């Protein structure tokens, strides 16, 4: 049982690209993320085709999603929300799909072969997302306060706070990455254990909480915290 669990937790090489004699191994995490990206791109093109003043059904769906994201970013960043809403929305939509991707497994059962599992269960993926977020925070500080103003913000309110302000830029991405990784991996392990213990009925109910609710909540929290950090950097 432990071996099965470890096998499900780890990432595996899906296939190897042979490029000019270099062998580049591609893990199943990357393949899953490619699938998610393809779904997002296809949906984005499909929903925004033939935009018009009087929206049709497809455009209505796109408008609901965009307005929902815009309103959330507007609450956190009142003045400069327009510059950050596209990035935050993209990250949130990606995370919503990535965290809940394990419910889209069409072919059930079987340890062998490719299965859709949340790519955010690997700490490298979440660290990458957190570093991206902190880069946007630094960019926001430099873009709207200038380089001098951004450096000055390290000694505010008093110069005594300098080491804490520097530590802030290390702690923020660490906590973002570990929160997402721990939540998704924890929920993933619990779901795997449930699949092993009670393969019928129980997973359908509990998956609603562990996959859907937890995944969407963590995507929302990730985006919300990033927007709060950005609005702090703009002050």
């Amino acid at each position, binding site marked *: 049982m432990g071996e099965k669990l*470890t096998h499900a*937790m780890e990432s595996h090489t899906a296939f190897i690209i042979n490029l000019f004699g270099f062998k580049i191994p591609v893990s199943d995490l990357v393949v899953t993320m490619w699938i998610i990206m393809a779904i997002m791109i296809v949906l984005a093109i499909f929903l925004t085709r033939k935009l018009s003043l009087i929206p049709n059904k497809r455009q209505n769906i796109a408008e609901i999603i965009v307005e929902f994201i815009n309103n959330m970013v507007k609450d956190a960043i009142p003045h400069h929300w327009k510059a950050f809403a596209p990035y935050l929305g993209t990250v949130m939509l990606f995370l919503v799909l990535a965290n809940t991707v394990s419910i889209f497994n069409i072919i059930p059962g079987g340890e062998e072969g490719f299965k859709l599992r949340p790519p955010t269960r690997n700490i490298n993926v979440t660290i990458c997302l957190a570093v991206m977020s902190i880069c946007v925070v630094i960019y926001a500080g430099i873009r709207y306060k200038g380089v001098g103003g951004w450096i000055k913000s390290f000694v505010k309110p008093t110069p005594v706070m300098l080491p804490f302000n520097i530590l802030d830029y290390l702690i923020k991405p660490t*906590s973002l990455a*570990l*929160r997402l*990784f*721990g*939540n998704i*991996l*924890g929920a993933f392990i619990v779901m795997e254990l449930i699949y092993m213990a009670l393969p019928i009925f129980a997973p359908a109910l509990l998956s609603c909480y562990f996959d859907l609710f937890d995944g969407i*909540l*963590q995507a*929302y*929290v990730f985006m*919300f915290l990033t927007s709060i950090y950005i609005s702090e950097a703009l002050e």
Partner: protein
Amino acid sequence: MTGTGIIAIAAAIAAFTGIGAGIGIGLATGKAVEGIARQPEAAGSIRTSLLLGAALAEATAIYGLVVALVLVFLKM
């Protein structure tokens, strides 16, 4: 006692971080319910900040989980 046993006990101690998160989320939810009972029209904004606070309080428990998992899967 073998090394494996000590690691298992260490992982169990790391899981005690759940106590703090449980108390924290319980207090936050209690206060949120009080707030909604006193001012039902503010339920929407209270719910948003409650979710955020619960997610932040939960983070400590998640750190414990990560430490326990590292101990179990990397050291055993």
